[in-house]
């Protein structure tokens, strides 16, 4: 019984590279020149790409708390254009309820999640997305996966405009992966604001003009998970891209408050933060707003 459960849990990781391989294969056969989806109607001062965490379901679907955070950031920074319609855990921006073999399973899990948030079956979606995160960070599959993600972003972003990635949890790695492929074409500085971001030792980090990591006081271990399997994050590996970037002065860690990683007091929480008149989410939005003002 235990082995069956273990196998089922490992299955999303095992299948993860095949999605990228399939996309790459189809793309080579039917490659067509891609036009931007929308022409900008007004000047953009700055554009913000939001990447959700590993519990993400699609680019179109955002939790109410995530929408509230983005709305508040928009209020604080007029002229900001927010793009959240890229699902970072698919090289082809195919949401979990898209044309997939396991579509029914993901939809069923999503319906469960809407009824009972953070239920035990959520772990399947999380594992599936972690599989894609590991694909993005893998030096063998990563260039292909990140090329796909960058292609989706190219369709939605305007070149020459400073771009900020706002990434929660595992979304930070996806931003780093895409940046490696995107920087040269956007011809504008890229910045990353990570909310409890989980990084790998992806060399794409060097493409960012600045990286700000907002860390809650109660968010103690998730952000360090990368150190388990990415030797480039170990401090003694002073030659790794990550360590060189960390010491270059472009990387900052800011304590955002009493946030935890997942739960009512996380970076999006609607509960009041202690000793303030703001919610956890408002606290985060204000900090992100301050970071954006400095860019």
């Amino acid at each position, binding site marked *: 019984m235990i082995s069956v459960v273990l196998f089922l849990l490992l299955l999303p990781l095992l299948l*993860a590279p095949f999605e990228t*391989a399939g996309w790459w294969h189809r793309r080579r056969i039917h490659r067509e020149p891609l036009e931007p989806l929308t022409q900008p109607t007004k000047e953009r001062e700055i554009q913000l790409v939001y990447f959700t965490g590993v519990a993400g379901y699609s680019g179109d679907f955002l939790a109410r708390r995530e929408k509230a955070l983005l709305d508040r950031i928009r209020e604080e920074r007029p002229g900001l254009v927010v793009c959240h319609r890229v699902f970072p855990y698919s090289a082809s921006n195919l949401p979990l309820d898209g044309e997939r073999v396991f579509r029914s399973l993901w939809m069923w899990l999503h319906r469960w999640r809407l009824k009972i948030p953070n239920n035990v079956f959520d772990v399947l979606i999380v594992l599936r997305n972690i*599989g894609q995160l*590991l694909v993005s960070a893998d030096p063998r*599959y990563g260039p292909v996966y990140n090329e796909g993600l960058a292609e989706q972003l190219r369709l939605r972003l305007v070149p020459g405009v400073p771009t900020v990635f706002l990434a929660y949890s595992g979304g930070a790695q996806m931003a780093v992966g895409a940046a490696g492929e995107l920087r040269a074409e956007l011809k504008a500085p890229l910045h990353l604001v990570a909310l409890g971001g989980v990084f790998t030792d992806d060399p794409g980090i060097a493409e960012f003009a600045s990286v700000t990591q907002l860390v809650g006081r109660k968010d103690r271990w998730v952000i360090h998970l990368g150190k388990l399997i990415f030797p480039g994050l170990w401090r003694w590996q002073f030659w790794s891209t990550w360590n060189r970037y960390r010491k270059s002065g472009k990387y900052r860690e800011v304590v955002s408050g009493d946030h935890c990683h997942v739960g009512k007091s996380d970076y999006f929480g609607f509960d009041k933060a202690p000793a303030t008149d703001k919610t956890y989410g408002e606290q985060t939005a204000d900090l992100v707003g301050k970071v954006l003002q400095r860019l």
Partner: protein
Amino acid sequence: MVESFTHFVTFGSWRALFRELVRATVVFTLTAAFWAVSVVLALALWGHQPAIGALFLVLCFAHIPLLAFPLTIFPTIGYRLEQVLRLTVYIFFVAGLTVYLKTPLTIAAVVCLPGWLLHFFLTEWRLLNR
């Protein structure tokens, strides 16, 4: 067989895939042969004369960990596993020389190193370049 199955995703056609497989097999075979020859020569310099057949057996034995190679398909974890497996081949080769051919451990470790490094770096060249 030689290169990880996972590299295949990046090739565009069956012909390119076949060409890549042949190239990788040639690199693997040549560097493995160089490894064996360098060990024989280095041992001879140290005054040991191992039987070629026995050495070949030890070399085969050293590659047993590569049977776990299909597991390298797992993203990232598999990439690390690939490095670990290649390191294990070196360790098994040194252990085989020490136990089976009675070569002193330090000498076995030294004579195996140059050939293994060349073998490792050339077969991993593309990955390490990324």
